[in-house]
């Protein structure tokens, strides 16, 4: 990645931020959510995270080695991809599934297209969708394990979103907001605790690794979509329904950590707003009208494909051009 950007003429201002540092910061920012996941789901969650991260790094190293390319595991992007894949798994999954997902993400989605910076969609999410389509049963099996330390009394094994889907939109079918915030719910390893994810997001915002434009537009337009749906379906406004949709699935993890991926999101400011709104509306459509309870990952990889077009139409005017005509 670093070798690609050679600018010749001086003088230059040196920034301390490198690709490796950015990726390390993202990995650190993911840790709070990962730790809550390990606390909730126990040793199995830790094993899944270790396997997914390890196999992503190993796949990257092996690819570089056998293709006679410079070793790129030092840029930490494989660590982030592997960690994200692990956090997108339900805790009861057999360990070979996250490993297979990591290998697919690194080799097929990232390296075959030219490595970091060249991939056309988010590797971690592409792998998640690959696994969702291939092993739908295992990927949506949120059965409660013995090690689940949360509200064991109240948990049936369905995620809040799946419960919403099964019962339809009726008042009182949703989970208390407090449980959603601290993570006493079922879900994949990394998505349960909104507070932990927001701590991570705050770290990234502090270091200016990400801007809040994409996540806030995404979450905001999704909320507007759900509110419009609630009012249009004639059942009235239900705060719990809205918050279950916002906090009960992968929306927070997806919006803060995956939609903001540099490679697969627009670089223009206007484009980022457009991208966020596209994500929000598509997620709403997939979740409410689609066949599966979750829609964040499909919405993000679909919008990844729209990014080149979004950037084309939102290209800023070059300095000195396009002023008022005399």
């Amino acid at each position, binding site marked *: 990645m670093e070798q690609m950007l050679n600018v010749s003429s001086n003088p230059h201002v040196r920034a301390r931020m490198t690709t490796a540092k950015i990726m390390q910061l993202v990995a650190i920012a993911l840790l709070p959510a990962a730790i809550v996941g390990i606390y909730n789901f126990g040793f199995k969650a830790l094993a899944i995270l270790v396997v997914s991260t390890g196999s992503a790094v190993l796949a990257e190293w092996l690819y570089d080695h056998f293709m006679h390319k410079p070793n790129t595991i030092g840029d930490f992007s494989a660590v982030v991809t592997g960690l994200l894949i692990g956090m997108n798994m339900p805790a009861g999954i057999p360990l070979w599934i996250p490993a297979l997902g990591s290998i697919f993400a690194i080799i*097929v989605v990232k390296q075959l297209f030219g490595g970091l910076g060249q991939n056309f969609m988010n590797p971690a999410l592409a792998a998640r969708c*690959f696994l969702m*389509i*291939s*092993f*739908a049963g*295992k990927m949506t099996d949120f059965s409660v394990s013995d090690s689940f330390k949360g509200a064991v009394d109240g948990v049936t094994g369905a995620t809040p979103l799946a419960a919403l889907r099964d019962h339809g939109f009726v008042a009182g079918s949703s989970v208390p907001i407090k449980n959603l915030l601290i993570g006493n719910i079922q879900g994949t390893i990394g998505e349960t605790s909104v507070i932990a994810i927001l701590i991570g997001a705050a770290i990234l915002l502090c270091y200016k690794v990400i801007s809040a434009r994409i996540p806030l537009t995404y979450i905001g337009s999704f909320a507007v979509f759900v509110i419009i749906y609630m009012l249009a379906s004639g059942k009235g406004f239900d705060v719990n329904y809205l918050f279950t949709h916002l906090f009960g699935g992968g929306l927070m993890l997806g919006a803060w950590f995956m939609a903001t991926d540099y490679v697969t999101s627009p670089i223009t400011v206007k484009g980022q707003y457009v991208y966020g709104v596209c994500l929000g509306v598509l997620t709403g459509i997939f979740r409410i009208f689609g066949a599966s309870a979750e829609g964040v990952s499909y919405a993000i990889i679909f919008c990844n494909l729209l990014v080149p077009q979004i950037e084309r139409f939102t290209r800023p005017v070059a300095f000195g051009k396009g002023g008022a005509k005399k």
Partner: protein
Amino acid sequence: MKKNTPSERLINGIIKENPTFVLMLGMCPTLAITTSAINGIGMGLTTTVILAASNLMISLLRNFIPDSVRMPAYIVVVASFVTIVQMLLQGFIPFLYSSLGIYIPLIVVNCIILGRAEAYASKNKPIPSLFDGIGMGLGFTLSITCIGAVRELIGAGTIFGKQILPLADAAAGKMGYEPVTIFILAPGAFFVLAFLSAIQNKFKLGAAKRGIDPSNPDCKGGCASCGNSMCSGKRG
């Protein structure tokens, strides 16, 4: 090897200009029906019959078809053969007929068939054209059967409907193969096509680098003593 002999045409169609992996023609049936090896071989052989017959017919008629209406004329010829084959399939191999479905009538607009009619049969004598059709058809059959077999093996653990990899059975607590369902869905077709194309490119380009033309059995390697200017090793 001499040009336009039957055996040269067969080798050309199967290896040198394989319609799927080299010419990249006929992608619709290639991607859509290769969910299993049996579908691949059925579709391939059906196309081969039509391709050979229409190549022969168009070559025979090549001096009678006016240039300005050649495309409609080809379509009429091809469509007639497709209708015959479709009825035969429906009558004698109904399971194949139902599993290929809409893709049988769509053979009419298959770009391999129209491509060979335009590029070869309309300019050459009937016998080489017939063998060109058979060669291209067999090349197509071989390729899509391979794609179908790989997709079926990974996506369902079977080849030609026979269980190769024993499946896992959670109820009985039996360990076994867990089918990767995406491979028998649309994305799997692209993965396998790309993967197999890469493998054959590796094989062909590697051979070309060493100066050996894999499609030419006369080639002994080393271009210095060879007078064949059409050799892919020389051009590459």
